[in-house]
């Protein structure tokens, strides 16, 4: 029997020699089908086998340690997501509360379009006329620039069959003498249509006899509409309706 079959320690051989002779010895035993005897197989081979299995187990065990860290991380992420979700819901509610759902008017002065709408739906788009952006100057030095004012406004009043009280510039434009305030020549009926919405500072949304000019910049600052659109808008809005002109 080869020396490698002898028990390690008793044989007194160095580990390297044992290893070198032990593996071939084990292989020869397996090849001959002889039953492995713990005492006959080189101890080193068994040590190697156990160490390999132990290392595999330790590696698996180490993965168990990172798993708990993973769970902690997930828990923290879930909490963060929950907080963000709640914050966003709060912000969403705050923004939703700003929308009253009421109808408002938007006037696009570049394209001469008046839109009657809510936040989510457009009710009507009307062709309108806005300020001519023309400049008129009187001999006395007074001058006027005819532009529809931009910004946000509120319907302050509603009129039926509005009367036009001619301002000074309307006489200056026609090279006519300017009558005193309250003079009957200043009162003109039937030129502003059947309805008017008052926006303040003398500005209105009203009708016009110059329907062929709708869609252009032809007014002296007011917003002019055709008869049908004017009636629809007048009936849809109320005092307090917002008007946005840009």
């Amino acid at each position, binding site marked *: 029997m080869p020396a490698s079959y002898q*028990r390690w*320690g008793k044989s007194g051989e160095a580990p390297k020699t044992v290893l070198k002779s032990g593996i071939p010895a084990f292989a020869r035993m397996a090849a001959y089908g002889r039953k492995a005897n*713990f*005492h006959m197989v080189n*101890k080193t081979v*068994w*040590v190697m086998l*156990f*160490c390999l*299995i*132990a*290392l*595999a*187990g*330790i*590696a*698996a*065990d180490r*993965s*168990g340690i*990172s*798993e708990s860290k*993973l*769970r902690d*991380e*997930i828990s923290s*992420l*879930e909490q*963060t*997501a929950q907080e*963000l*979700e709640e*914050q*966003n819901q709060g*912000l*969403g509610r*705050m*923004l939703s509360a*700003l*929308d009253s759902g009421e109808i*408002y008017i*938007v006037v*696009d*002065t*570049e*394209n001469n379009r008046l*839109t009657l*709408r809510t*936040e*989510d*739906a*457009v*009710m*009507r788009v009307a062709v309108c006329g806005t300020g001519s952006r023309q400049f008129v100057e009187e001999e006395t030095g007074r001058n006027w620039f005819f532009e529809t004012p931009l910004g*946000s406004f509120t319907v302050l009043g509603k009129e039926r069959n509005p009367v036009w009280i001619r301002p000074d510039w309307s006489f200056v434009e026609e090279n006519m003498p300017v009558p005193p305030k309250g003079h009957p020549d200043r009162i003109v009926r039937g030129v502003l249509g059947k309805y008017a919405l008052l926006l303040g500072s003398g500005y209105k949304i009203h009708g016009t006899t110059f329907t062929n000019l709708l869609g252009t910049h032809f007014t002296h600052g007011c917003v002019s509409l055709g008869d049908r659109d004017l009636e*629809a808008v007048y009936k849809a809005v109320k005092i307090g309706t*917002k008007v*946005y002109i*840009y």
Partner: protein
Amino acid sequence: MNIKWIIVLVSLFATGADSGALDISEQRQLIEKRTALTRRIEHLKQEQDFLLFQKEFSTLDSKYLILDLAERKGQLKYKHVVLKDFQFTTSPVSAYKKIPSGALTLTSRVEKPRARMSLAFGKTLVIWSKAGESSGKKQRGIVYLTVKRKDLVSISYALEDGAQAYIIPSSGLRAKIGVTKSVRD
């Protein structure tokens, strides 16, 4: 063999003995869950940024744009009020993948001639009309939004220099632009 060695080796074996196969699959599930949560948090942060933008501009006296690149829809807004809805085409088509969500600032504009009217938001985005598209030269790296001329005219008139445009690149954000219905009598 020395009995001590047997005890040591068996102990080594026992420390490692574990149901390794089950842990790996469970671990994979946990990693996937973590990835999904990270993605969700990112989405929620984007959503919050948009909500905070709207909250800030609900009080400012300034008009701004909201641009949904995925849906190719835009809104001109003032405070919380929609002044105008418009649509656009994008170049490149997958523009929503090119620009991250967030606010851009109007840095320059061309107003005349009208055919070449355009609005530039840094070196990121340009809004122009079809006429501008055919006469202008596209630069690499810039996303171009083509709108109708009348829309461009009114948007350009409405926006001041330095105005903001907020980009919503992905669908699914809670506070994205809704569909504006048209109700005519």
